[in-house]
Structure formats: structure tokens, C-alpha cells
């Protein structure tokens, strides 16, 4: 009893459904099995007890969360926040002018300057961190240069400053790229108009350029903050034993102490901080 008009769209709709199934199901199955199920497991472990020999005993406890607010662990969490925030701030202060200048270069140089920003990023992460051990360690280049000036030697490794340097070195490109695309997209006529109306270069920057690039600033900050916050390799290699960040704690709970429930609770705290930041970023980007 179907009318002609109703029958016609049917194959298209069926094709669409079939297409959605054929194309989406393999990838979504992969994501379900290797992302969502694992995350759900980690989440569920936060309320269970650790087994005597590692592993998880399925008995409820709130202990993992009460341990989180122990000043010792809160201190580590706060310290990681501070280190990541400091890294992000410096990356922004150095990255903004760099991105701004790159965007003004003639197009040939622009490409070269951009490739040169990303190039170090494509070499092995551990080796890039190792390079700083070479530079900063006791007999390293910086100390021998200082020695020629009659200074030092200083202990340049194993403090918060070294960790920030390492994080900055690893993630600065992630700040410059979004900033560059934000500045690049600006209409130069807006700045010309501002200058013609008598604004100084600084006023133009403050009133025109900066507000229009806020989304790029937020993206860059997020790109630098997220990997800095949960990092455990850089604090371990450049920070020494005293400087533990939340990433080191999580790693140790999983691979050394084998306290998976508490490790999961720490990971949940890490995710909570990042989700909070994402929400703030989305809110600020919408207002910008």
C-alpha cells in the first residue's frame, strides 16, 4: 500500500544506515574495547581495595579517595599544577611574539620558520630530554662556559627550573602553532585601521590583536598544559628524586607499589583537573 512518493526515499535511507554501520562499526568497536572499557575499569577500581600481592580485591572502600586528600598527595598535585602552569605561562610569553613575527614574514620564510619550529618536535622525546642533561649536568657545556668566566660550577640539574625547561623544550611547538594560525587569520586591515585612528602599536595589540587571538591562546595553553601536567619522564630525568609530579605517583602505583586502586584514584584526579580546564576553555572561547 505504499505510495510512489513514500517509497522513493527509502533506498537512500537504507543506504545511509548501511553506510553508517559499515564505516563506523569497526572503528567504534575498537574504541569501545580499547578505550571505553579500559577507562570504565580504571574508574571502577577507584572504589575497590588493593590485593595483598597487587591486583584488585572487589570489596568497596572509600579509602583511595581519603588518601587523595592527604597533604602529601595534595602537595604533589598542587606542585604539578604549579609546574605545568609555569611552563604554560612561559611558553605563552615566548611563543606569542615568535608566532606573531612568523605570521608577518614573507611566505617563503614563513614556511621555513614554521618547519624549523616543528622539526625538533619530530625527534625522539627521550633524546630531546637527554640533550638537557648533557647541557646542564656538572661537567656539561653550561658549567664549562661559566667556568671560563670564573663562575660555578653550579648544580643546574634536579630542580623545578630544570623540569620547567625540559617541559618547555618538549611542548613549546604546541604553543606556537595554534598561536600562529590565530595571528595569521587576522585581517591586517583591522590593525591598519587602529593605527590610522591614532592608536599606538601597544594599544592596537591590546585592543585588537590580543582579543581576536584569544581562542588560539587558549588552545595553545591547553596543548602545553595537558602533556606537562601528567608527565613523568621529564621530572624523573631532569628533576631527580625529590621532584615528584602526579605522573610519577601514578606510574609508581601501577608499576612499583602495585596499588592499582589508589593509582586509579590519582588518575581520576588528573582527569578531573583536565576536564575542569577543558570546560573553562570552552566557556572562555565562546565568550571571546
Amino acid at each position, binding site marked *: 500500500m505504499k505510495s510512489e512518493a513514500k517509497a522513493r526515499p527509502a533506498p537512500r535511507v537504507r543506504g545511509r544506515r548501511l553506510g553508517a554501520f559499515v564505516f563506523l562499526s569497526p572503528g567504534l568497536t575498537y574504541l569501545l574495547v580499547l578505550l571505553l572499557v579500559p577507562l570504565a575499569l580504571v574508574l571502577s577500581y577507584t572504589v575497590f581495595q588493593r590485593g595483598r600481592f597487587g591486583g584488585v580485591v572487589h570489596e568497596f572502600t572509600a579509602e583511595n579517595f581519603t588518601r587523595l586528600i592527604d597533604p602529601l598527595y595534595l602537595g604533589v598535585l598542587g606542585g604539578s599544577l604549579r609546574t605545568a602552569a609555569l611552563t604554560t605561562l612561559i611558553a605563552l610569553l615566548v611563543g606569542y611574539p615568535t608566532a606573531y613575527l612568523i605570521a608577518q614574514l614573507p611566505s617563503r620564510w614563513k614556511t621555513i620558520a614554521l618547519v624549523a619550529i616543528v622539526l625538533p618536535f*619530530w625527534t*625522539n622525546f627521550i633524546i630531546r630530554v*637527554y640533550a638537557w642533561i*648533557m647541557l646542564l649536568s656538572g661537567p656539561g657545556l653550561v658549567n664549562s662556559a661559566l667556568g671560563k668566566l670564573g663562575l660555578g660550577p653550579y648544580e643546574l640539574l634536579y630542580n623545578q627550573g630544570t623540569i620547567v625547561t625540559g617541559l618547555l623544550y618538549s611542548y613549546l611547538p604546541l604553543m606556537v602553532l595554534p598561536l600562529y594560525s590565530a595571528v595569521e587569520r587576522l585581517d591586517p586591515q583591522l590593525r591598519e585601521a587602529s593605527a590610522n585612528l591614532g592608536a599606538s*602599536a601597544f594599544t592596537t595589540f591590546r585592543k585588537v590583536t590580543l582579543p581576536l587571538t584569544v581562542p588560539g591562546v587558549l588552545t595553545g595553553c591547553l596543548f602545553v598544559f595537558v602533556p606537562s601536567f601528567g608527565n613523568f619522564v621529564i621530572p624523573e630525568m631532569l628533576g631527580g628524586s625529590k621532584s615528584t609530579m602526579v605522573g610519577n605517583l601514578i606510574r609508581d602505583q601501577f608499576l612499583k607499589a602495585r596499588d592499582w586502586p589508589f593509582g586509579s584514584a590519582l588518575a581520576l584526579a588528573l582527569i578531573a583537573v583536565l576536564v575542569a580546564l577543558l570546560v573553562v576553555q570552552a566557556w572562555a572561547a565562546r565568550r571571546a
Partner: protein
Amino acid sequence: MRRSKLLYVPFWATYVFLYLPIAVLVVMSFNSGESAYTYEGFSLKWYGELAADERIRTGLVNTLIVAAGSTAIATVLGTLLAVGLARHTRSKTLDALALMPAVLPDLVLAIGLLVFYSAIQLTLGLYSVTLAHALFSMAFVAAVVRTRLTGADTSLEEASRDLGAGPVVTFMKITLPQLTPGIVAGALLAFTLSLDEFVIAFFTIGNAEPTLPIVIYSMVRFGVTPKINALAAILLLVSFTAVIAGQRMTRIGESRAQD
């Protein structure tokens, strides 16, 4: 527009900061002395020692196996996912889900996978690392391919459908050929990311023979050795060549597209 000369200070500082450590590594890799810190003249001996190092050779082979395997999985699944997301659904949730492995901190992915593998009692090894690498690589492939799809002209696909072709035929005959540059770019990205990935491999390799980044990590922890400088110089050369070649290829691809 006038601009302040002061801007050049952070600009050049950035480049010095990025390249000074690398330059020191490369220079020191040609050192003839035993010390990793004082340069005593030119020599290639550390390259020789590097070539003779069994652990590094095995690590390199393992890294290549994992990268090839995970790139293959990620390219197929990521491409299908990108087409599905761009052409067959409007769900923002699925979009976000597909990107999630690229956005989540690697440490979170790593512990999730470790917990999951242990729950299903999988013996860890190179294949568990391969499956793990494919997870985040897939997200990057999907993102790269999607960018091309959103910019692409859909009239050919519509014509194909109007002429009665099903979604699979349309994909094979029309979409896939159009997408090839994007898929190649995504696959290259997936391969490079896997070569360098450390945290997830560190958690999901178990007691199996490690990949190269893990070998380097354990060598560095035992102290500074000039052998690593030589390895660093070679890896730098490889990745610099790859990036510049990739840059050239996209430029050639773009100029062809404009013709």
C-alpha cells in the same frame, strides 16, 4: 605596519633554545674522546659502537614492527571512521569519541590499557603495544582524513549515489581515490608517532624485548654515554629528512591540485 625590534628577542631566543641542545648532541657524537662532555677531536667511533650494539638493533627492529602493524590497523580503521563521521552521521558525541585517544594524556591511556590487558589476562608483548599504538594513531588518521573530507566536493559522491551505487561502491570508486593524499599523510603521521611513543609502550610491553625509546630510556638512566649522542644524531637526520620530504610532497601535491 611598524613593529618593535624588541619582538625579535623572543623570536631568536626561541630558535636558539630549540636548536642549541640538538647542535651540542650532534657535535659531541663525533667526539674522539671517552667523555661525553669534552670535545677532543673528530672521530666516527661512537657510530661504530652504536652499530655493534645488539640491544639497540633489536629495539629498532621491534619499533619498526610495532609502527608498521599499528599504522596498518590505524590507517584502515581511521579512514573508515573518518568517512563514517563525515558522511553518515551528524553525532557530535561520536566525533568527540573518535578524537579522545589523541586528546587524553598518554599516561591515562597507558594505565587503562594495562588494566584492561591484565583483566582479560593477555600476556603482554609487541602485539599488545601494537594494538595500543593503533588506538591513538587511529584518532590522528581519522582527524587528518576528516579535514580533507570536509573540504572535498561532494557532487561526485552524490552523482554516484543518484546513479544507484551503494555506500561501499561509492566509497571504493569515488571517495577513496579522492582521499588518497590525506590517507597517506595520516599513515605517515601514525608511523612517526608510533616510532617515538614511549609512555604507552612502557606500560604495555610487559617483560618482552623493548622498543627503541624504552632502550634509550634505560640507557640514559644508567648515565650519559657518547653512544646515545651518535644515535641521537642519526635519528635527527632521519626525522629531519622525513619532515622536509613530507613538506616537499605536500607542496608538489598542492601545486598539482591547482593546475
